């Protein structure tokens, strides 16, 4: 099996790159990114080969726990997620090649980057609980170390501390999940677990634990708090990896547990992911719309997309539990394609944000502006990403959202009343999320790239090196291609769908054109991306021609908006905050208890008027700050236990012994 050697060599190369990068300093570190790119290319090729060619790769290594070793297996599901991950790693590596090593010497990032990539690949191919948890934790720790790379920044330290806590909680939840899956017999191999699915009650607990474990890594609200802090704190290409790719590993973990290991589903398993996902989608975007930091907005948008994916997964569970395999296939295809699409456009957007950060040194939207003139290429790529993230046809984001809405609409066929009535409500929330996403990206693009520069740095910006443009351009190309060829992608993931839900998009190919994507019913739900793209193109070109024919040909540059302001300052433009004000008033007043105060000095006083907004994050207050205080208080109380006399320690031991013996005497 040559594929096995290729993957092994690629993973080994990543590990060696990490080891060597800890030893060398200075410009020699530059070797890391080309090597990572090559390894990602090799791993992605193997994944693609396995996905297209069927079959699976199995390996066993005699390392790890004695008598268990390390079981590795690459099946269709792992291969699909492997393509997602290695695509992201490839783009991030190419972007990394463009770093100016004289200025951005980052010896803390290079050794960890290949290790992070290798850890994510390992999670996918792990075939026993030990290997899974080990590589999951390796992934968490390497990404944590990447977040803390700029440790001189207190924000960064705070973010990494919170991330470390949340990662520990998530991993321990997964530990419980696998404990429940393995059962009292302790069969930790995935094949053993598959052969003996747990009892219903245990399965419910496992599902809850998996939701906590994977949800915390993916940013499911209310476990999201670390994500908008940690993802932006990392260097931009690592942010792209964490947001675009690592969250997908979380989705993989949930899919692996809920669809593969947990046995046949009950219908009510669908409710937690659907409800949490819908809440996450809407709240994530409300956060995004109100935030003023470019990278944090993108991180909140990631939270929203994870919510969308979890809604799709929940629907797939619901359909599968009721034996409606075609509906399940549509929902699952929506989830998987959204995983793929989001990894492309979110990586693109984060790389774009990195380019902006590199060019201007700023992330605050209110300090940017007018970048479309100074960074034309980045502006175009970012626009493609923003359009895809807003799920506009004919870009790729639309394909998966369209499939998801098909699944939601088909939700009325579900027999259970709860799901029956949940479907339209979820559909409404997703529609709200889609609208908010569009508003969010109009706001981001409008304030960062359009208008006039709001700061000296933005006015002096310049486009980024060629390698970084290539990375962004490649992803933008994929976003467009993925939008046009959605039906091809749906056919490619068919083996995964068959493994997970026992059916694929059966009516594929029955649409009016070869490339039309059909969900469920070829008479009613058909999406023909190329036709729509053609229509959009014709309409745009016609409009362009007409306007140019009717208007003067020559470009005139005159004073813009020169109505009453002889020398308008850039501060008179719409800012990110002012653009968000309507949404803040409509939603923020309820969800975040937003309060606006205007301090107006009396006439004659020449102090400036002041406007301030106070937002309250209820989730943080109730689920993070309060438990944090409780833990502190409790540990202060328990601190006294460190200063007892010998006899009291003996009393404690004796008490514990007697209590345990009594329990044994009563229970057995």
């Amino acid at each position, binding site marked *: 099996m040559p594929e096995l050697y290729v993957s092994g060599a690629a993973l080994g190369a990543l590990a060696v790159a990490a080891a060597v990068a800890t030893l060398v300093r200075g410009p020699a570190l530059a070797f890391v990114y080309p090597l990572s790119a090559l390894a990602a290319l090799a791993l992605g090729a193997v994944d693609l080969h396995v996905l297209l060619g069927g079959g699976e790769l199995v390996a066993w290594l005699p390392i790890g726990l004695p008598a268990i070793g390390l079981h590795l297996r690459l099946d269709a599901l792992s291969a699909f997620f492997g393509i997602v991950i290695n695509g992201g790693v490839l783009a991030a590596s190419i972007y990394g090649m463009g770093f100016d090593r004289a200025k951005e010497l980052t010896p803390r990032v290079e050794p960890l980057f290949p290790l992070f990539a290798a850890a994510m690949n390992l999670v996918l191919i792990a075939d026993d609980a030990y290997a899974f948890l080990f590589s999951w934790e390796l992934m968490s720790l390497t990404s944590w170390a990447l977040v803390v790379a700029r440790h001189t920044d207190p924000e960064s330290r705070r973010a990494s501390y919170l991330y470390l806590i949340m990662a520990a909680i998530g991993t321990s939840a997964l530990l419980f999940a696998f404990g429940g899956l393995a059962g009292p017999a302790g069969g930790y191999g995935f094949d053993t677990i598959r052969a003996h699915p747990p009892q219903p009650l245990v399965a419910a607990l496992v599902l809850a634990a998996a939701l906590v474990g994977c949800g915390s890594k993916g940013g499911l609200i209310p476990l999201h708090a670390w994500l908008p802090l940690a993802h932006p704190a990392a260097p931009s290409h690592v942010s792209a990896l964490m947001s675009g790719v690592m969250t997908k590993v979380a989705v993989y973990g949930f899919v692996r547990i809920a669809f593969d290991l947990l046995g046949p589903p009950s219908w009510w398993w669908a409710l937690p992911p659907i409800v949490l996902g819908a809440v996450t989608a809407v709240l994530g975007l409300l956060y995004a719309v109100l935030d003023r930091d470019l990278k944090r907005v993108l991180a909140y948008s990631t939270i929203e997309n994870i919510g969308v994916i979890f809604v799709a997964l929940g629907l797939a569970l619901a359909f599968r539990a009721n034996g409606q395999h075609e509906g399940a296939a549509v929902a699952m295809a929506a989830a998987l394609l959204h995983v793929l699409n989001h990894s492309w456009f979110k990586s693109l957007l984060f790389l774009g944000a990195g380019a902006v950060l590199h060019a201007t040194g700023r992330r605050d939207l209110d300090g940017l502006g007018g970048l479309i003139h100074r960074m034309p290429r980045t502006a175009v790529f970012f626009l493609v990403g923003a359009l895809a993230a807003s799920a506009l046809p004919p870009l790729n984001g639309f394909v998966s959202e369209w499939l998801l809405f098909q699944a939601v609409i088909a939700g009325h066929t579900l027999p259970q009343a709860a799901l029956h009535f949940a479907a339209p409500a979820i559909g409404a929330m997703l529609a709200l999320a889609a609208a908010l996403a569009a508003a969010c990206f109009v706001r981001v693009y409008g304030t960062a790239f359009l208008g006039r520069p709001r700061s000296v740095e933005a006015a002096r910006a310049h486009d980024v090196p060629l390698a970084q443009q290539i990375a962004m351009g490649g992803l933008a190309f994929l976003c467009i291609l993925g939008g046009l060829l959605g039906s091809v992608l749906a056919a490619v993931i068919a083996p995964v769908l068959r493994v997970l839900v026992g059916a694929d998009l059966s009516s594929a190919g029955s649409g009016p054109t070869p490339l039309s994507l059909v969900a469920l019913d070829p008479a009613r739900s058909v999406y023909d991306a190329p036709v729509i793209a053609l229509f959009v193109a014709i309409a745009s070109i016609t409009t362009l021609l007409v306007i140019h024919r009717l208007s003067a040909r020559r470009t005139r540059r005159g004073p813009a908006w020169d109505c009453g302001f002889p020398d308008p300052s850039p501060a008179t433009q719409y800012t990110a905050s002012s653009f968000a004000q309507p949404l803040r008033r409509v939603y923020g007043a309820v969800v975040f208890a937003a309060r606006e105060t205007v301090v107006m000095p009396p006439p004659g006083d020449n102090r400036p008027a002041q406007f301030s907004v106070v937002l309250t994050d209820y989730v943080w207050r109730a689920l993070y700050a309060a438990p944090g205080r409780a833990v502190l208080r409790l540990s202060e109380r328990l601190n006294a236990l460190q*200063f*007892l*006399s*010998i*006899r009291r320690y*003996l*009393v404690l031991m*004796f008490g514990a*012994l*007697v209590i345990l*013996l*009594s329990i*044994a*005497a009563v229970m*057995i």
Partner: protein
Amino acid sequence: MSQVYDISHLLAGVMLVTSFALLYQQRIAAVLNAFAAQSITLALAVAWAAWSENRPDLFITALIAFSLKGVVIPVALHRTVARLGIHREVEKVVGVGAALMVGLALTALAQALVVKIAQGPASQAREELALALAIILMGFLMMIVRRNAVTQIVGFMSMENGLILAATGARGMPLVVEISVAFSVLIALFVFAVFVFRIRERFDTIDIEALDRMRGDRR
């Protein structure tokens, strides 16, 4: 066969009675004597097991128990007490009555537990196991309810007696293990003894609360 068990149960029962005696003795010399009695009873019980079950290696255990814990340790502790002049130091945390009630409850707990967990072919030995567990728990109790360092040593040794009794009943504890247990107890005794003298030198008392006062601890 039943007489064999009757006698071993009798000896174990006597040990339990000495455990109660340890709990209510007021004077240190009496505590040491009760401990010596318990150890000698243990030696007898082990010797009986060795003879009745034809396991000659247990004779060595019995010999160790008799010579070390029945004679050497009590004599050494008697001397220590005499040298330190602490015959009358009886400092209890809990009153005698309460301690005895707790001891009774522990015995009941041990009985209830062992009846539940030891079933099947080993059920003949389970009374002995229950008694041994009760002796262990009461040795622990004694370490708690007394403040004096010497009585804490005695409590510890009494626990160890219970362990040996349990191991004899469980049949299958290798001699090597028993010897190593005996030696570890001996070493523990040395450590205890050294500590007692050091405490005495420094604080003029062997009340262990003095240690707490030294650490600035609140009671």
